């Protein structure tokens, strides 16, 4: 029998205070799609970073086609045919697609980059694998899904035979996820192998040939989608039964807390992203803002939280005008904000966990008195939040950058919910969380509501919206185009309004692909 394409043997990696990988063995066959599943902090990213040469293992070996190899840098991994797409893309935004793809491997004559040859090469692979993309487009103008495509092309251009995708779907819209899956399927028919990390069980069921489940740094099981179901996967992962739909009582809607009237907000480029939005959020209810990413949600949330100036309309909180208030005043008025991007806005990655826990409250008792921080109080509260939200960490003194992606998200939630706000504005609150953690966060958000607090939930995920929302507002191109009560709308109804209510959803997708195709054929 031929040796597997790639084999990991007894990989062990220890971080200070954490055994992230504990004798992990795993093999990947040619043309196989392997899903790597596991709780937040189980060690999935660590394992893949070892394979890609970003981390060096303390013990164990990697074999490619039976030969033991020493991978000490991504460069070597690439030379061995391993490609990796990180959750946070590593593209250069102002450069074109072609420039990004060939970066580091430019075809050149006497030191001069041959761009026409580069463009040809990009076209060739993009045709071969069915990854339509315009080679001359500038990366910063592309959608997240397209940028991810560029990342994949980059790996293919460098000759990847094994492609690792770390939570590739966490930032994608449902339509983009479909596109990605088609790409992955076409890659394996071309003989590549794909390892993908995800927390979404339906993706595992729909795409994987084989599922490897990790817990606490070890492989705890291996199965095939045909031999199990989502509940079975969840049980393997978390070690207990998981309810996917948390219990929800009827809403006890009360007084208006947030009132937004004819709000207008500009985006980075000075274009109107929010075009006169009016709505209200009351105590005891969860209002969800449903929409395809990039329809003004980010700008709306930033205006509500004092991070972006409104150019028209008003925002009032508890009856007082907060249209031009600073973030500090808004926080003090009882608003908590879970930002959509935990690395950019949610955390100071170089701060330790306790310092992150007090961000926003760092001038208030009990954390500060007369401008002096009381670290005993800070540590107390930090420990409590870490325990309450099951943030997996050796201590509250490690930097936030040392947490796994999902645990970073839990830390943000622990801080914002732990503050006991009157109004919670949560954008993508469960992004990157495992099923157990999602269940917990959903029950926390519902508990807030049941205690008479108000919640504005912004999510790209219809499932989350359907589970939590008492009212659903659909946003499209900066306007609220439709309102539904809980249980009133099917996913299809929502999808219809989210794409402009013209039933052009499919045409819209096809157009994107077609215009990219034009680029390829031009």
């Amino acid at each position, binding site marked *: 029998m031929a040796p597997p394409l790639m084999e990991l043997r007894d990989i062990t990696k220890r971080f200070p205070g954490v055994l992230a990988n504990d004798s992990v063995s795993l093999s990947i066959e040619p043309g196989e799609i392997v899903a790597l599943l596991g709780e937040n902090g189980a060690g999935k990213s660590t394992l893949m970073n070892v394979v890609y040469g970003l981390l060096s293992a303390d013990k164990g070996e990697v074999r490619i086609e039976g030969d033991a190899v020493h991978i000490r840098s991504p460069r070597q991994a690439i030379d061995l045919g391993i490609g990796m797409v990180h959750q946070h893309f590593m593209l250069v935004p102002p450069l074109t697609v072609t420039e990004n793809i060939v970066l580091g491997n430019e075809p050149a004559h006497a030191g001069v980059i041959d761009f026409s040859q580069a463009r040809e090469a990009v076209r060739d692979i993009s045709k071969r694998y069915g990854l339509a993309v315009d080679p001359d487009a500038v990366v910063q103008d592309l959608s997240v899904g397209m940028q991810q495509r560029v990342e994949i092309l980059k790996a293919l251009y460098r000759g990847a035979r094994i492609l690792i995708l770390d939570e590739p779907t966490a930032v994608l819209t449902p339509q983009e996820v479909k596109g990605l899956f088609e790409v992955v399927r076409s890659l394996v028919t071309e003989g590549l192998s794909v390892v993908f990390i995800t927390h979404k069980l339906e993706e595992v069921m729909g795409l994987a040939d084989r599922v490897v489940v990790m817990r606490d740094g070890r492989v705890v099981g291996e199965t095939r989608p045909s031999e199990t179901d989502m509940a079975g996967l969840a049980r393997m992962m978390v070690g207990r039964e998981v309810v996917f739909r948390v219990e929800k009582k009827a809403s006890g809607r009360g007084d208006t807390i947030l009132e937004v009237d004819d709000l207008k907000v500009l985006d980075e480029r000075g274009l109107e992203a929010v075009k006169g939005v009016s709505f209200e959020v009351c105590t005891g209810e969860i209002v969800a803002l449903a929409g395809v990413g990039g329809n003004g949600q980010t700008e709306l949330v930033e205006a509500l939280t004092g991070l972006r100036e409104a150019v028209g309309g008003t925002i009032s909180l508890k009856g007082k005008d907060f249209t031009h208030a600073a973030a500090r005043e808004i926080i003090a008025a009882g608003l908590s904000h879970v930002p959509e991007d935990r690395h950019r806005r949610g955390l100071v990655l170089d701060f330790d966990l306790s310092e992150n826990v007090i961000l926003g409250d760092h001038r208030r008792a009990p954390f500060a008195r007369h401008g002096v921080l009381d*670290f005993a109080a800070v540590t107390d509260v930090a420990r409590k939040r870490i325990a309450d939200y099951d943030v997996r960490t050796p201590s509250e003194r490690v930097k936030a950058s040392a947490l796994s992606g999902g645990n970073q998200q839990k830390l943000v939630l622990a801080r914002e919910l732990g503050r006991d706000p009157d109004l919670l504005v949560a954008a993508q609150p469960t992004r990157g969380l495992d099923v157990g953690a999602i269940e917990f966060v959903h029950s926390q958000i519902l508990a807030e509501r049941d205690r008479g607090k108000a919640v504005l939930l912004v999510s790209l995920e219809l499932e989350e919206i359907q589970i939590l929302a008492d009212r659903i507002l659909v946003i499209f191109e900066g306007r609220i185009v439709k309102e539904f009560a809980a249980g009133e709308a099917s996913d299809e109804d929502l999808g219809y309004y989210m794409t402009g209510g013209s039933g052009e959803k499919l045409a819209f997708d096809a157009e994107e692909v077609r215009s990219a195709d034009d680029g390829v054929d031009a």
Partner: protein
Amino acid sequence: MTESMHEMTIRRLLAIVRELAVPIVSVVIAMVIGSIIMLISGFDPVAAFSALLKGSFGGGRQIGETMLRATPLMFTGLAVAYGFRAGLFNIGAEGQLFMGGLSAAWLGIVLAGLPRPLNIVLMILAGAAIGAAWAFIPALLKARVGAHEVITTMMFTYIGRYIVSWLVTGPLKAPGQIPQTDVLPTESTLPKLHEVTAFLPISRAHLGFAIAVVLAMFVWWVLKYTSLGYESRAVGYNPWASETGGISVSATTVKALCISGALAGLAGVTEVMGVHLRLFDQFSPGFGFTGIAVALLAKNNPIGVIAAAILFGALSAGGGTMQLEAEVPQKVIFVIQALIIFLVAAEQIARWIIGRASREGVEHAG
């Protein structure tokens, strides 16, 4: 989940060792390369370094000289380090230093006849204030219109230096040929360290050194244990997350650059009050700029600044002895200083060497 106290202590110690490794390795490598240069040029590095050591730590007077030369670098190093912690590059510490020196030279005369402790306190406060003021306009420009502080603080350095040049040749000039201000009366000067502490040997070191050390510890405390320091560091690390957490990035920027300016101003105050006792055009040989190197070597840690400033002070104090006794030109000192700066800046090189060494250690052990 939780680890034992023992594990935690070990982890912290390891972290400290790792922090110190790069600066120390950089200094050692710089000295090795310096030695090679001396060998190639036909000098004896062993003789040179022993002379250097003798000239900087060989006796009470020599140690005092090292302290004297470390003093202004400690202030400017602190100034630059505080700025860096808030994500600001205060390249204009030199200008703030000149303004601090100017205020001391002027105020010292005005306050003549008043009690010495009062004068010292007032002159220090005034120097810090004018240093802060000199940084305030660049800070405001940064906060309001985003003008980069590297450009603006540098411009203000030129303005400050020319103001001093003009004043010492004109309005504030003491009678005589030399363009300098009047000498300060004793009650407007800093006492020598051996005058205030009975047990220290006689040297030129003055009270400014003690002030700098205490201030370094205070700045360390401010950064770590106050809301102000917390906000400065938060903005330095991640302005978007800071803003989201209700911190005003522009107000924090203004405060941090002013604090940096105040610290730099004190370098000028103590040089005038403790060393020259008057002001002239060339009273600082670029302490503000060397402060950048000190901050880099200290990795922007205020306690590290104490050590880094003493090292630079020692190199400067011992350089003369080295030239005299080992006949190695003092310029070699500049080469070594430049190498240290280069190596710390090119931290990756040092990290790489350390990484290799420890990896090999592990492999041999395993």
